Protein backbone atom coordinates (compact mmCIF):
# COMPACT_ATOMS: atom_id res chain seq x y z
CA UNK A 1 0.00 0.00 0.00
CA UNK A 2 1.51 3.24 -1.00
CA UNK A 3 0.90 6.47 0.85
CA UNK A 4 -0.97 9.67 0.10
CA UNK A 5 1.89 11.25 -1.81
CA UNK A 6 2.68 8.14 -3.90
CA UNK A 7 -0.94 7.92 -5.09
CA UNK A 8 -0.56 11.39 -6.59
CA UNK A 9 2.88 10.90 -8.13
CA UNK A 10 2.09 7.42 -9.51
CA UNK A 11 -1.16 8.58 -11.12
CA UNK A 12 -0.20 12.14 -12.03
CA UNK A 13 -0.91 11.69 -15.79
CA UNK A 14 -4.48 10.51 -15.09
CA UNK A 15 -5.12 13.15 -12.42
CA UNK A 16 -3.84 15.98 -14.61
CA UNK A 17 -5.68 14.85 -17.74
CA UNK A 18 -8.88 14.69 -15.66
CA UNK A 19 -8.15 18.09 -14.16
CA UNK A 20 -7.76 19.70 -17.60
CA UNK A 21 -10.92 18.07 -18.93
CA UNK A 22 -12.81 19.56 -15.96
CA UNK A 23 -11.05 22.90 -16.49
CA UNK A 24 -11.99 23.03 -20.18
CA UNK A 25 -15.53 21.98 -19.37
CA UNK A 26 -16.09 24.76 -16.80
CA UNK A 27 -14.24 27.36 -18.90
CA UNK A 28 -16.48 26.80 -21.94
CA UNK A 29 -19.61 26.50 -19.77
CA UNK A 30 -18.68 29.77 -18.02
CA UNK A 31 -18.53 31.68 -21.32
CA UNK A 32 -21.89 30.21 -22.41
CA UNK A 33 -23.41 30.99 -19.01
CA UNK A 34 -22.28 34.64 -18.94
CA UNK A 35 -23.31 35.38 -22.54
CA UNK A 36 -26.68 33.62 -22.38
CA UNK A 37 -27.31 34.76 -18.80
CA UNK A 38 -26.78 38.43 -19.73
CA UNK A 39 -29.01 38.10 -22.77
CA UNK A 40 -31.80 36.47 -20.77
CA UNK A 41 -31.50 39.08 -18.01
CA UNK A 42 -31.79 41.82 -20.66
CA UNK A 43 -34.91 40.09 -22.02
CA UNK A 44 -36.42 39.90 -18.54
CA UNK A 45 -36.02 43.60 -17.77
CA UNK A 46 -36.84 44.86 -21.28
CA UNK A 47 -39.92 47.07 -21.59
CA UNK A 48 -41.34 44.61 -24.16
CA UNK A 49 -43.80 42.10 -22.82
CA UNK A 50 -43.07 39.20 -25.16
CA UNK A 51 -39.32 39.47 -24.45
CA UNK A 52 -40.13 39.29 -20.71
CA UNK A 53 -42.14 36.15 -21.36
CA UNK A 54 -39.33 34.48 -23.33
CA UNK A 55 -36.80 35.38 -20.61
CA UNK A 56 -39.13 34.11 -17.87
CA UNK A 57 -39.78 30.89 -19.78
CA UNK A 58 -36.04 30.30 -20.18
CA UNK A 59 -35.28 30.84 -16.49
CA UNK A 60 -38.15 28.71 -15.23
CA UNK A 61 -37.32 25.88 -17.64
CA UNK A 62 -33.62 25.61 -16.94
CA UNK A 63 -33.86 26.38 -13.23
CA UNK A 64 -36.59 23.84 -12.55
CA UNK A 65 -35.07 20.82 -14.29
CA UNK A 66 -32.36 18.95 -12.37
CA UNK A 67 -29.01 19.17 -14.16
CA UNK A 68 -28.82 15.39 -14.44
CA UNK A 69 -32.20 15.27 -16.21
CA UNK A 70 -31.12 18.09 -18.49
CA UNK A 71 -28.01 16.10 -19.41
CA UNK A 72 -30.10 13.02 -20.23
CA UNK A 73 -32.40 15.07 -22.46
CA UNK A 74 -29.52 16.91 -24.12
CA UNK A 75 -27.56 13.75 -24.84
CA UNK A 76 -29.55 10.50 -24.83
CA UNK A 77 -32.80 12.28 -25.71
CA UNK A 78 -31.39 14.17 -28.69
CA UNK A 79 -29.42 11.18 -29.92
CA UNK A 80 -32.55 9.00 -29.76
CA UNK A 81 -34.25 11.71 -31.81
CA UNK A 82 -31.52 11.37 -34.41
CA UNK A 83 -29.40 14.43 -33.52
CA UNK A 84 -25.76 13.24 -33.41
CA UNK A 85 -24.75 15.54 -30.52
CA UNK A 86 -21.35 14.77 -28.97
CA UNK A 87 -20.93 14.23 -25.23
CA UNK A 88 -18.65 17.26 -25.11
CA UNK A 89 -21.20 19.61 -26.73
CA UNK A 90 -24.08 18.19 -24.68
CA UNK A 91 -22.04 18.56 -21.47
CA UNK A 92 -20.76 22.10 -21.93
CA UNK A 93 -24.09 23.34 -23.33
CA UNK A 94 -26.16 21.79 -20.52
CA UNK A 95 -23.89 23.07 -17.77
CA UNK A 96 -23.64 26.52 -19.39
CA UNK A 97 -27.36 26.93 -20.13
CA UNK A 98 -28.29 25.64 -16.67
CA UNK A 99 -25.98 28.12 -14.94
CA UNK A 100 -27.15 30.90 -17.29
CA UNK A 101 -30.64 30.73 -15.74
CA UNK A 102 -29.18 31.49 -12.29
CA UNK A 103 -26.88 34.19 -13.64
CA UNK A 104 -29.84 35.82 -15.38
CA UNK A 105 -31.72 35.94 -12.09
CA UNK A 106 -28.72 37.39 -10.23
CA UNK A 107 -28.23 40.05 -12.92
CA UNK A 108 -31.93 40.90 -12.90
CA UNK A 109 -31.73 41.66 -9.19
CA UNK A 110 -28.65 43.78 -9.94
CA UNK A 111 -30.53 45.69 -12.63
CA UNK A 112 -33.32 46.48 -10.17
CA UNK A 113 -30.71 47.84 -7.77
CA UNK A 114 -29.88 50.55 -10.32
CA UNK A 115 -32.20 53.51 -9.64
CA UNK A 116 -35.09 53.86 -12.06
CA UNK A 117 -34.29 57.58 -12.29
CA UNK A 118 -31.06 56.73 -14.11
CA UNK A 119 -32.91 54.77 -16.77
CA UNK A 120 -35.45 57.58 -17.21
CA UNK A 121 -32.63 60.12 -17.43
CA UNK A 122 -30.77 58.09 -20.04
CA UNK A 123 -33.88 57.52 -22.14
CA UNK A 124 -34.83 61.21 -21.93
CA UNK A 125 -31.33 62.08 -23.15
CA UNK A 126 -32.14 60.18 -26.29
CA UNK A 127 -30.31 56.88 -25.66
CA UNK A 128 -32.07 53.83 -27.04
CA UNK A 129 -33.10 51.12 -24.59
CA UNK A 130 -30.33 48.65 -25.60
CA UNK A 131 -27.74 51.43 -25.29
CA UNK A 132 -29.13 52.46 -21.91
CA UNK A 133 -28.73 48.87 -20.76
CA UNK A 134 -25.24 48.50 -22.17
CA UNK A 135 -23.83 51.87 -21.05
CA UNK A 136 -25.73 52.74 -17.86
CA UNK A 137 -27.53 49.80 -16.28
CA UNK A 138 -25.51 46.61 -16.94
CA UNK A 139 -22.09 47.95 -15.85
CA UNK A 140 -23.59 48.95 -12.52
CA UNK A 141 -25.66 45.75 -12.30
CA UNK A 142 -22.57 43.57 -12.88
CA UNK A 143 -20.72 45.44 -10.13
CA UNK A 144 -23.48 44.81 -7.58
CA UNK A 145 -23.79 41.13 -8.42
CA UNK A 146 -20.08 40.21 -8.55
CA UNK A 147 -20.22 38.38 -5.18
CA UNK A 148 -23.36 36.51 -6.27
CA UNK A 149 -21.75 35.57 -9.60
CA UNK A 150 -18.74 34.25 -7.70
CA UNK A 151 -20.98 31.86 -5.75
CA UNK A 152 -22.71 30.74 -8.95
CA UNK A 153 -19.40 30.00 -10.68
CA UNK A 154 -18.23 27.96 -7.69
CA UNK A 155 -21.51 26.02 -7.83
CA UNK A 156 -20.99 25.50 -11.56
CA UNK A 157 -17.48 24.11 -11.06
CA UNK A 158 -18.83 21.63 -8.54
CA UNK A 159 -21.79 20.79 -10.79
CA UNK A 160 -19.32 19.83 -13.51
CA UNK A 161 -18.79 16.59 -11.56
CA UNK A 162 -22.40 15.67 -12.38
CA UNK A 163 -21.60 15.99 -16.09
CA UNK A 164 -18.75 13.48 -15.74
CA UNK A 165 -20.79 11.10 -13.61
CA UNK A 166 -23.70 11.06 -16.06
CA UNK A 167 -24.22 8.96 -19.17
CA UNK A 168 -21.92 11.34 -21.07
CA UNK A 169 -18.96 9.65 -19.38
CA UNK A 170 -16.54 12.50 -20.02
CA UNK A 171 -13.11 11.62 -18.59
CA UNK A 172 -13.19 14.52 -16.10
CA UNK A 173 -11.39 14.79 -12.76
CA UNK A 174 -14.01 12.76 -10.86
CA UNK A 175 -14.15 10.02 -13.52
CA UNK A 176 -10.35 9.70 -13.59
CA UNK A 177 -10.27 9.60 -9.78
CA UNK A 178 -12.91 6.87 -9.68
CA UNK A 179 -10.95 4.93 -12.29
CA UNK A 180 -7.79 5.13 -10.16
CA UNK A 181 -9.81 4.24 -7.07
CA UNK A 182 -11.27 1.14 -8.73
CA UNK A 183 -7.78 -0.02 -9.67
CA UNK A 184 -6.00 0.75 -6.39
CA UNK A 185 -8.89 0.68 -3.85
CA UNK A 186 -7.18 3.62 -2.08
CA UNK A 187 -10.45 5.46 -1.68
CA UNK A 188 -9.45 8.08 0.88
CA UNK A 189 -6.18 9.00 -0.83
CA UNK A 190 -7.63 9.19 -4.33
CA UNK A 191 -10.65 11.31 -3.39
CA UNK A 192 -8.48 13.56 -1.24
CA UNK A 193 -6.54 14.51 -4.38
CA UNK A 194 -9.73 14.85 -6.41
CA UNK A 195 -11.03 17.27 -3.76
CA UNK A 196 -7.76 19.20 -3.94
CA UNK A 197 -8.17 19.43 -7.72
CA UNK A 198 -11.68 20.86 -7.41
CA UNK A 199 -10.53 23.26 -4.72
CA UNK A 200 -7.75 24.59 -6.95
CA UNK A 201 -10.45 25.53 -9.46
CA UNK A 202 -13.00 26.90 -6.97
CA UNK A 203 -10.43 28.86 -4.94
CA UNK A 204 -9.00 30.37 -8.15
CA UNK A 205 -12.52 31.48 -9.03
CA UNK A 206 -12.98 32.88 -5.52
CA UNK A 207 -9.79 34.93 -5.76
CA UNK A 208 -10.60 36.13 -9.27
CA UNK A 209 -14.03 37.35 -8.21
CA UNK A 210 -12.63 38.95 -5.06
CA UNK A 211 -10.16 40.83 -7.26
CA UNK A 212 -12.99 42.08 -9.52
CA UNK A 213 -15.00 43.01 -6.47
CA UNK A 214 -12.19 45.20 -5.18
CA UNK A 215 -11.34 46.55 -8.62
CA UNK A 216 -14.88 47.76 -9.33
CA UNK A 217 -15.68 48.70 -5.75
CA UNK A 218 -17.73 51.87 -5.22
CA UNK A 219 -15.64 53.99 -2.87
CA UNK A 220 -17.85 55.15 -0.02
Amino acid sequence: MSGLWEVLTEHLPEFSSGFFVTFRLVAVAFVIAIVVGTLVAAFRVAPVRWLNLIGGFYVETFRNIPLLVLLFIAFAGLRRAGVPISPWVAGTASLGLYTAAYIAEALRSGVFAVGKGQVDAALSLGLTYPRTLRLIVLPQAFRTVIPALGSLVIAMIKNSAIVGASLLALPDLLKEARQIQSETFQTTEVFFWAAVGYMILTLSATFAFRYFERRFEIKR
Partner: protein
Amino acid sequence: MNREPRWRLIAIAMLVLAALVLAACGDDEEESSDEPAAAAEEFPADTTMAEIQEAGTITIGVKFDVPPFGLNNPQSGEVEGFDVDLGNYIADRLGVEAEFVEANSDNRIPLLVDGSIDLILSTMTITEERDLEIDFSEPYYVANGDVLVPGGSEIAALEDLSGQTVCTALGSTYQETIKAEVPDAQLKLVDRYSECLELIQTDAVDAVSTDNVILTGMVIQDDTLELLDLDFTTEPYGVGIPDGDTEMKEFVDESVAEFIDDGSWQETYDEWVGQYIPEDQIQGPPDITLEEALKLFPL
Protein backbone atom coordinates in the same frame (compact mmCIF):
# COMPACT_ATOMS: atom_id res chain seq x y z
CA MET B 1 -54.33 42.61 1.56
CA ASN B 2 -55.60 40.39 4.34
CA ARG B 3 -52.65 38.31 5.53
CA GLU B 4 -54.49 35.94 7.87
CA PRO B 5 -55.74 33.31 5.36
CA ARG B 6 -52.35 32.98 3.74
CA TRP B 7 -50.69 32.05 7.01
CA ARG B 8 -53.42 29.54 7.63
CA LEU B 9 -52.76 28.05 4.18
CA ILE B 10 -49.04 27.72 4.90
CA ALA B 11 -49.78 26.06 8.25
CA ILE B 12 -52.09 23.56 6.56
CA ALA B 13 -49.53 22.87 3.84
CA MET B 14 -46.87 22.17 6.48
CA LEU B 15 -49.20 19.87 8.40
CA VAL B 16 -49.95 17.93 5.20
CA LEU B 17 -46.23 17.66 4.53
CA ALA B 18 -45.56 16.42 8.06
CA ALA B 19 -48.35 13.86 7.72
CA LEU B 20 -46.86 12.61 4.45
CA VAL B 21 -43.43 12.28 6.03
CA LEU B 22 -44.89 10.31 8.93
CA ALA B 23 -46.86 8.09 6.57
CA ALA B 24 -43.73 7.41 4.53
CA CYS B 25 -41.85 6.43 7.68
CA GLY B 26 -44.63 4.05 8.63
CA ASP B 27 -44.14 2.10 5.41
CA ASP B 28 -40.65 1.11 6.45
CA GLU B 29 -41.87 -1.20 9.18
CA GLU B 30 -41.55 -4.66 7.78
CA GLU B 31 -43.59 -7.57 8.91
CA SER B 32 -41.36 -9.97 10.81
CA SER B 33 -39.99 -12.67 8.52
CA ASP B 34 -41.08 -16.28 8.64
CA GLU B 35 -39.52 -18.82 10.98
CA PRO B 36 -36.22 -20.13 9.60
CA ALA B 37 -36.61 -23.40 7.75
CA ALA B 38 -36.15 -26.39 10.04
CA ALA B 39 -33.57 -28.07 7.80
CA ALA B 40 -30.94 -25.32 8.09
CA GLU B 41 -27.57 -26.22 9.51
CA GLU B 42 -26.53 -24.81 12.91
CA PHE B 43 -23.36 -22.80 13.28
CA PRO B 44 -21.20 -21.77 16.28
CA ALA B 45 -22.50 -18.50 17.77
CA ASP B 46 -19.55 -16.32 16.81
CA THR B 47 -19.65 -17.07 13.06
CA THR B 48 -21.08 -14.77 10.40
CA MET B 49 -23.50 -17.54 9.42
CA ALA B 50 -24.99 -17.61 12.94
CA GLU B 51 -25.30 -13.81 12.90
CA ILE B 52 -27.11 -13.95 9.56
CA GLN B 53 -29.44 -16.66 10.88
CA GLU B 54 -30.13 -14.52 13.94
CA ALA B 55 -31.00 -11.57 11.68
CA GLY B 56 -33.16 -13.76 9.45
CA THR B 57 -31.92 -12.24 6.20
CA ILE B 58 -28.74 -12.30 4.15
CA THR B 59 -28.04 -9.16 2.12
CA ILE B 60 -26.50 -9.93 -1.26
CA GLY B 61 -25.17 -7.41 -3.77
CA VAL B 62 -26.18 -8.28 -7.34
CA LYS B 63 -26.42 -6.35 -10.59
CA PHE B 64 -29.86 -4.94 -11.39
CA ASP B 65 -29.34 -4.32 -15.09
CA VAL B 66 -27.43 -7.32 -16.39
CA PRO B 67 -29.67 -10.03 -17.74
CA PRO B 68 -29.22 -12.99 -17.52
CA PHE B 69 -27.23 -12.70 -14.23
CA GLY B 70 -29.02 -10.04 -12.25
CA LEU B 71 -31.98 -8.06 -13.59
CA ASN B 72 -34.53 -6.05 -11.67
CA ASN B 73 -37.48 -7.14 -13.77
CA PRO B 74 -39.84 -4.19 -14.13
CA GLN B 75 -42.79 -6.51 -14.84
CA SER B 76 -42.54 -8.60 -11.67
CA GLY B 77 -40.65 -6.12 -9.51
CA GLU B 78 -38.31 -8.99 -8.57
CA VAL B 79 -34.59 -9.35 -9.16
CA GLU B 80 -33.84 -12.42 -11.25
CA GLY B 81 -30.99 -14.23 -12.97
CA PHE B 82 -28.17 -16.71 -12.47
CA ASP B 83 -26.51 -14.76 -9.64
CA VAL B 84 -29.89 -14.34 -7.91
CA ASP B 85 -30.60 -18.09 -8.09
CA LEU B 86 -27.21 -18.91 -6.57
CA GLY B 87 -27.85 -16.27 -3.89
CA ASN B 88 -31.22 -17.81 -3.05
CA TYR B 89 -29.57 -21.25 -2.96
CA ILE B 90 -27.04 -20.01 -0.37
CA ALA B 91 -29.83 -18.30 1.63
CA ASP B 92 -31.88 -21.52 1.63
CA ARG B 93 -28.92 -23.45 3.04
CA LEU B 94 -28.84 -20.93 5.89
CA GLY B 95 -32.62 -21.03 6.25
CA VAL B 96 -32.91 -17.27 5.80
CA GLU B 97 -34.45 -14.87 3.33
CA ALA B 98 -32.17 -13.35 0.70
CA GLU B 99 -32.39 -9.61 0.24
CA PHE B 100 -30.90 -8.38 -3.02
CA VAL B 101 -29.47 -4.88 -3.29
CA GLU B 102 -27.87 -3.27 -6.33
CA ALA B 103 -24.09 -3.53 -6.46
CA ASN B 104 -22.37 -2.59 -9.70
CA SER B 105 -18.77 -3.04 -10.80
CA ASP B 106 -17.63 0.19 -9.18
CA ASN B 107 -19.31 0.07 -5.75
CA ARG B 108 -19.62 -3.65 -4.95
CA ILE B 109 -16.29 -4.05 -3.12
CA PRO B 110 -16.72 -0.88 -0.99
CA LEU B 111 -20.25 -2.09 -0.09
CA LEU B 112 -18.89 -5.45 1.08
CA VAL B 113 -15.95 -3.90 2.94
CA ASP B 114 -18.17 -1.45 4.84
CA GLY B 115 -20.60 -4.22 5.79
CA SER B 116 -23.61 -2.95 3.79
CA ILE B 117 -23.83 -6.35 2.12
CA ASP B 118 -22.91 -9.86 3.30
CA LEU B 119 -21.88 -11.30 -0.09
CA ILE B 120 -21.20 -10.12 -3.64
CA LEU B 121 -22.76 -12.05 -6.52
CA SER B 122 -22.31 -9.48 -9.22
CA THR B 123 -20.67 -11.14 -12.28
CA MET B 124 -17.37 -10.48 -10.53
CA THR B 125 -14.19 -11.81 -12.12
CA ILE B 126 -11.64 -13.18 -9.67
CA THR B 127 -8.48 -11.03 -9.69
CA GLU B 128 -5.46 -10.80 -7.40
CA GLU B 129 -6.01 -7.06 -7.00
CA ARG B 130 -9.56 -7.59 -5.70
CA ASP B 131 -8.33 -10.52 -3.61
CA LEU B 132 -6.30 -8.04 -1.55
CA GLU B 133 -9.55 -6.34 -0.47
CA ILE B 134 -11.93 -9.27 -0.16
CA ASP B 135 -11.95 -13.08 -0.31
CA PHE B 136 -13.27 -15.12 -3.23
CA SER B 137 -15.16 -18.39 -3.30
CA GLU B 138 -14.19 -21.12 -5.75
CA PRO B 139 -15.27 -20.08 -9.30
CA TYR B 140 -18.97 -20.62 -10.01
CA TYR B 141 -19.01 -19.55 -13.62
CA VAL B 142 -16.50 -18.88 -16.38
CA ALA B 143 -17.19 -16.05 -18.80
CA ASN B 144 -15.02 -14.84 -21.68
CA GLY B 145 -14.07 -11.38 -22.82
CA ASP B 146 -15.89 -10.29 -25.94
CA VAL B 147 -16.86 -7.27 -28.01
CA LEU B 148 -20.33 -6.13 -29.07
CA VAL B 149 -20.84 -3.91 -32.13
CA PRO B 150 -23.82 -2.54 -34.03
CA GLY B 151 -24.88 -4.70 -36.99
CA GLY B 152 -22.81 -3.90 -40.10
CA SER B 153 -19.88 -2.49 -38.13
CA GLU B 154 -16.41 -2.75 -39.63
CA ILE B 155 -14.94 -3.84 -36.31
CA ALA B 156 -14.16 -7.53 -36.52
CA ALA B 157 -11.17 -8.03 -34.24
CA LEU B 158 -9.71 -6.57 -31.08
CA GLU B 159 -7.13 -4.52 -33.05
CA ASP B 160 -9.95 -2.80 -34.96
CA LEU B 161 -10.93 -1.05 -31.72
CA SER B 162 -7.89 1.19 -32.15
CA GLY B 163 -9.07 4.79 -32.45
CA GLN B 164 -12.68 3.81 -31.68
CA THR B 165 -14.76 4.60 -28.60
CA VAL B 166 -15.38 1.55 -26.43
CA CYS B 167 -17.84 1.42 -23.55
CA THR B 168 -17.32 -0.70 -20.44
CA ALA B 169 -18.17 -0.44 -16.75
CA LEU B 170 -16.07 1.60 -14.36
CA GLY B 171 -14.16 -0.79 -12.11
CA SER B 172 -14.49 -3.79 -14.45
CA THR B 173 -11.51 -5.90 -15.55
CA TYR B 174 -12.00 -4.56 -19.09
CA GLN B 175 -11.05 -1.06 -17.96
CA GLU B 176 -7.48 -2.35 -17.64
CA THR B 177 -7.59 -5.07 -20.32
CA ILE B 178 -8.64 -2.67 -23.11
CA LYS B 179 -6.07 -0.09 -21.99
CA ALA B 180 -3.35 -2.76 -22.18
CA GLU B 181 -4.49 -4.51 -25.39
CA VAL B 182 -5.65 -1.52 -27.43
CA PRO B 183 -4.04 1.62 -25.95
CA ASP B 184 -5.43 3.76 -28.79
CA ALA B 185 -9.04 2.91 -28.03
CA GLN B 186 -10.97 5.70 -26.32
CA LEU B 187 -12.63 4.26 -23.22
CA LYS B 188 -16.09 5.38 -22.13
CA LEU B 189 -16.45 4.30 -18.51
CA VAL B 190 -19.98 4.20 -17.13
CA ASP B 191 -21.48 2.98 -13.86
CA ARG B 192 -23.85 0.40 -15.29
CA TYR B 193 -23.83 -1.87 -18.33
CA SER B 194 -27.33 -0.67 -19.24
CA GLU B 195 -25.70 2.71 -19.95
CA CYS B 196 -23.34 1.00 -22.43
CA LEU B 197 -26.40 -0.46 -24.14
CA GLU B 198 -27.97 3.02 -24.37
CA LEU B 199 -24.73 4.44 -25.78
CA ILE B 200 -24.27 1.77 -28.45
CA GLN B 201 -27.93 1.94 -29.47
CA THR B 202 -27.58 5.66 -30.16
CA ASP B 203 -24.19 5.22 -31.89
CA ALA B 204 -22.52 7.29 -29.16
CA VAL B 205 -19.86 4.57 -28.89
CA ASP B 206 -18.49 2.19 -31.51
CA ALA B 207 -18.35 -0.95 -29.37
CA VAL B 208 -19.01 -2.40 -25.92
CA SER B 209 -16.50 -4.75 -24.37
CA THR B 210 -17.12 -6.99 -21.38
CA ASP B 211 -18.02 -10.61 -20.49
CA ASN B 212 -19.78 -12.51 -23.29
CA VAL B 213 -22.72 -13.43 -21.04
CA ILE B 214 -23.41 -9.79 -20.25
CA LEU B 215 -23.17 -8.92 -23.95
CA THR B 216 -25.49 -11.84 -24.80
CA GLY B 217 -27.99 -10.22 -22.46
CA MET B 218 -27.76 -7.03 -24.53
CA VAL B 219 -28.29 -8.94 -27.79
CA ILE B 220 -31.42 -10.50 -26.24
CA GLN B 221 -32.70 -6.95 -25.62
CA ASP B 222 -31.67 -5.63 -29.04
CA ASP B 223 -31.01 -8.14 -31.81
CA THR B 224 -29.59 -5.54 -34.21
CA LEU B 225 -26.36 -5.76 -32.16
CA GLU B 226 -23.69 -8.32 -32.98
CA LEU B 227 -21.34 -10.32 -30.79
CA LEU B 228 -17.87 -10.86 -32.29
CA ASP B 229 -17.11 -14.11 -30.38
CA LEU B 230 -13.49 -13.12 -29.76
CA ASP B 231 -13.02 -14.82 -26.38
CA PHE B 232 -9.89 -12.78 -25.70
CA THR B 233 -9.92 -13.27 -21.91
CA THR B 234 -11.09 -15.92 -19.47
CA GLU B 235 -13.07 -14.43 -16.59
CA PRO B 236 -13.96 -16.86 -13.79
CA TYR B 237 -16.65 -15.43 -11.50
CA GLY B 238 -16.35 -15.82 -7.73
CA VAL B 239 -18.61 -14.98 -4.81
CA GLY B 240 -17.19 -11.99 -2.90
CA ILE B 241 -16.75 -12.72 0.82
CA PRO B 242 -15.55 -10.26 3.51
CA ASP B 243 -11.75 -10.41 3.82
CA GLY B 244 -10.48 -12.97 6.30
CA ASP B 245 -13.85 -14.57 7.12
CA THR B 246 -12.57 -18.14 6.72
CA GLU B 247 -15.71 -19.82 8.12
CA MET B 248 -17.89 -17.88 5.69
CA LYS B 249 -15.59 -18.74 2.80
CA GLU B 250 -15.71 -22.41 3.74
CA PHE B 251 -19.51 -22.28 3.90
CA VAL B 252 -19.85 -20.48 0.54
CA ASP B 253 -17.37 -22.87 -1.12
CA GLU B 254 -19.43 -25.81 0.15
CA SER B 255 -22.58 -24.15 -1.14
CA VAL B 256 -21.08 -23.55 -4.59
CA ALA B 257 -19.83 -27.16 -4.75
CA GLU B 258 -23.25 -28.46 -3.74
CA PHE B 259 -24.97 -26.12 -6.23
CA ILE B 260 -22.85 -27.71 -8.97
CA ASP B 261 -23.06 -31.30 -7.70
CA ASP B 262 -26.82 -31.54 -7.14
CA GLY B 263 -27.62 -30.38 -10.67
CA SER B 264 -28.87 -26.92 -9.66
CA TRP B 265 -26.03 -25.30 -11.60
CA GLN B 266 -27.00 -26.99 -14.88
CA GLU B 267 -30.67 -26.19 -14.35
CA THR B 268 -29.91 -22.54 -13.66
CA TYR B 269 -27.50 -22.36 -16.59
CA ASP B 270 -30.04 -23.82 -19.01
CA GLU B 271 -32.70 -21.40 -17.80
CA TRP B 272 -30.66 -18.19 -17.97
CA VAL B 273 -27.86 -18.79 -20.46
CA GLY B 274 -28.10 -22.09 -22.35
CA GLN B 275 -31.33 -21.36 -24.19
CA TYR B 276 -30.01 -18.11 -25.67
CA ILE B 277 -26.69 -19.22 -27.16
CA PRO B 278 -25.69 -21.51 -30.05
CA GLU B 279 -25.37 -25.15 -29.05
CA ASP B 280 -21.62 -25.34 -29.68
CA GLN B 281 -21.01 -22.66 -27.07
CA ILE B 282 -22.90 -24.38 -24.27
CA GLN B 283 -20.61 -25.09 -21.35
CA GLY B 284 -20.67 -27.15 -18.19
CA PRO B 285 -19.82 -26.08 -14.62
CA PRO B 286 -16.40 -24.42 -14.20
CA ASP B 287 -13.44 -26.80 -14.15
CA ILE B 288 -11.00 -24.20 -12.83
CA THR B 289 -9.89 -23.70 -9.23
CA LEU B 290 -9.64 -20.42 -7.35
CA GLU B 291 -5.85 -20.69 -7.40
CA GLU B 292 -5.76 -21.05 -11.20
CA ALA B 293 -8.31 -18.25 -11.57
CA LEU B 294 -6.20 -15.82 -9.55
CA LYS B 295 -3.25 -16.42 -11.90
CA LEU B 296 -5.32 -15.18 -14.87
CA PHE B 297 -5.43 -11.65 -13.42
CA PRO B 298 -2.17 -11.22 -11.49
CA LEU B 299 -1.22 -8.00 -9.74
